[in-house]
């Protein structure tokens, strides 16, 4: 989470809005990247499930929705649609 968080800060600082996925929200809370989406999956599974394009796309769409936020640092939770 740290490698990506630091990259995120550098890119955002240079004028490109960013959003990251996290599987360890407690750690992300300490690092404070601008926008992060906590997904309910283990380390190694940021996009949820292999070969599940529907779920992977849903995660990406939720992640991109965070780009509208300017109240950084943002940390939201991804919930699977029932």
């Amino acid at each position, binding site marked *: 989470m740290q490698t*990506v968080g630091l*990259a995120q800060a550098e*890119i955002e600082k240079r004028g490109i809005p960013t959003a990251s996925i996290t599987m360890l929200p407690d*750690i992300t809370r300490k690092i404070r990247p601008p926008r992060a989406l906590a997904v309910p*999956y*283990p380390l190694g599974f940021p*996009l949820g499930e292999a070969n599940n394009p529907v779920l992977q796309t849903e995660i990406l769409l939720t992640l*991109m929705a965070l780009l509208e936020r300017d109240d950084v640092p943002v940390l939201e939770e991804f919930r699977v649609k029932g």
Partner: protein
Amino acid sequence: MLPSTAMAETRNLSVTLRVFLKTYRWRKIDPVPMTRLAKPLSECRVALVSSAGFVVPGDAPFRDSVRGGDYSYRVIPADTDVQALEEYHRSDSFSHEGVDEDRNMGLPLDRLHELAAAGVISSVAPRHVSLMGSITAPGRLVERTLPEVGVLLISDKVDVALMVPV
């Protein structure tokens, strides 16, 4: 079947990793930078930044031997066959099963192409960035690598960057 329905809480991790997560001095981003989205997503060019340690076949592998973690980066062109990417992330702190089965788990390039085709985003950036995660000494990453990554994304006129750790 999902690998887990619960958040990857620290109590589910190995003792070694739990101790590390608790005692490691995480770099705190302060102040938190913020750039506003200047236009609708449907007009945005989107790039991916992954720390899954992926390398295009034929490119130099990430190296385990670099103390504190390999701070270099690799470029993944947009037209890469994502499933052909080689994975060099050797950390045993997570299951590699997901990315082994489907590289989109660490770099959802196929999904991004679909979103561009559907008009949700304007275009897929020509180059995406692959980093090695689990870098315990991030000094050289921050000082040398990330500024180069920033320049690369700017020169490709990227509007949005999505970050994917593993």
